[in-house]
């Protein structure tokens, strides 16, 4: 895999902007459909899929499928309403599984 494509999935208002920089944009607000979309994009060779934080919790199924593979990376990004802290919460979870206690955020 040499060249990877990059996709953004989310509601129209949040992700339209990414079109300007050449990322492939998919409008989706329904969790079920987004799940299917992610799986299809993964088959088509997308290396990175950005999901809005609103959509991220709805796509747990697809995210889990690709958890153990190096590609695609599914990354939550803030949407128009601003950040809800999903990304940081995820990171916190990783630290807790790996080290046992949260050593990054307790200060």
């Amino acid at each position, binding site marked *: 895999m040499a*060249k990877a494509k990059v996709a953004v999935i989310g509601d129209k208002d949040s992700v339209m902007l990414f*079109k300007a*920089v050449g990322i492939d944009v998919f409008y989706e607000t329904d969790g079920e459909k987004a799940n299917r979309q992610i799986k299809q994009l993964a088959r088509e060779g997308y290396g*990175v899929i950005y999901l809005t934080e609103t959509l991220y919790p709805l796509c747990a199924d697809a995210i889990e499928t690709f958890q153990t593979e190096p590609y695609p990376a599914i*990354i939550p990004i803030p949407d128009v309403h601003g950040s809800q802290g999903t990304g940081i919460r995820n990171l916190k979870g*990783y630290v807790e*599984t*790996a080290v046992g206690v949260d050593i990054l955020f307790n200060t």
Partner: protein
Amino acid sequence: MAAIQYKPTRMELSNLKKRLKTAVRGHKMMKDKRDELVRRFIVLARKNKELREQTEAKMAAAMQNFVLAKATMSNNEIEEALLYPARGIEVDAEKQTILSIPVPKLSMSTSEEIVYPYGFSSTSADLDGAVQAIAEALPLMLELAEVEKSTARLADEIEKTRRRVNALEYVMIPQYTEAIRTIQMKLDENERGNLSRLMKTKEMLQAQAQ
């Protein structure tokens, strides 16, 4: 602990000793692996946190501009302006390994120069700002994707390794040690039994000869 039953033979004993040796060596290696993984993980996690904060700040700025732009322009105009990207992005995706765990490595091969995909006459300045901010955020976003995925993979692997270390340390090794001890004791007991039998026989033979 319920030890597994082994036949008390010398053959079994030497087999078990060999296995114990392997288990101890494996345990040491796993432990080293775990320690190294944790060390790298902490570095990655710190970087991940920093990157995420930076990226989210950049993106928030872009979104803010975009919202402003939407206030001053009609939906159709915005869509028209953004519909056709002026450039595609090309991302090189390699696989690199951290202690034989495959993780992604992403690098962008497009120029950093910002190209606006629309004419300036019908669009507001806020849209320019939004596009500029998102273009600036793009390399950060890619790096974030790489680091975040690596962090997730490492966390997964650390948990697995830790389980293995614990299984070896608290189950396999004590079990083998226990089994070896039991067999050793049985063998010694047999030996003693044999010896006393011999002594008894000798005594009886001596008594007969007299």
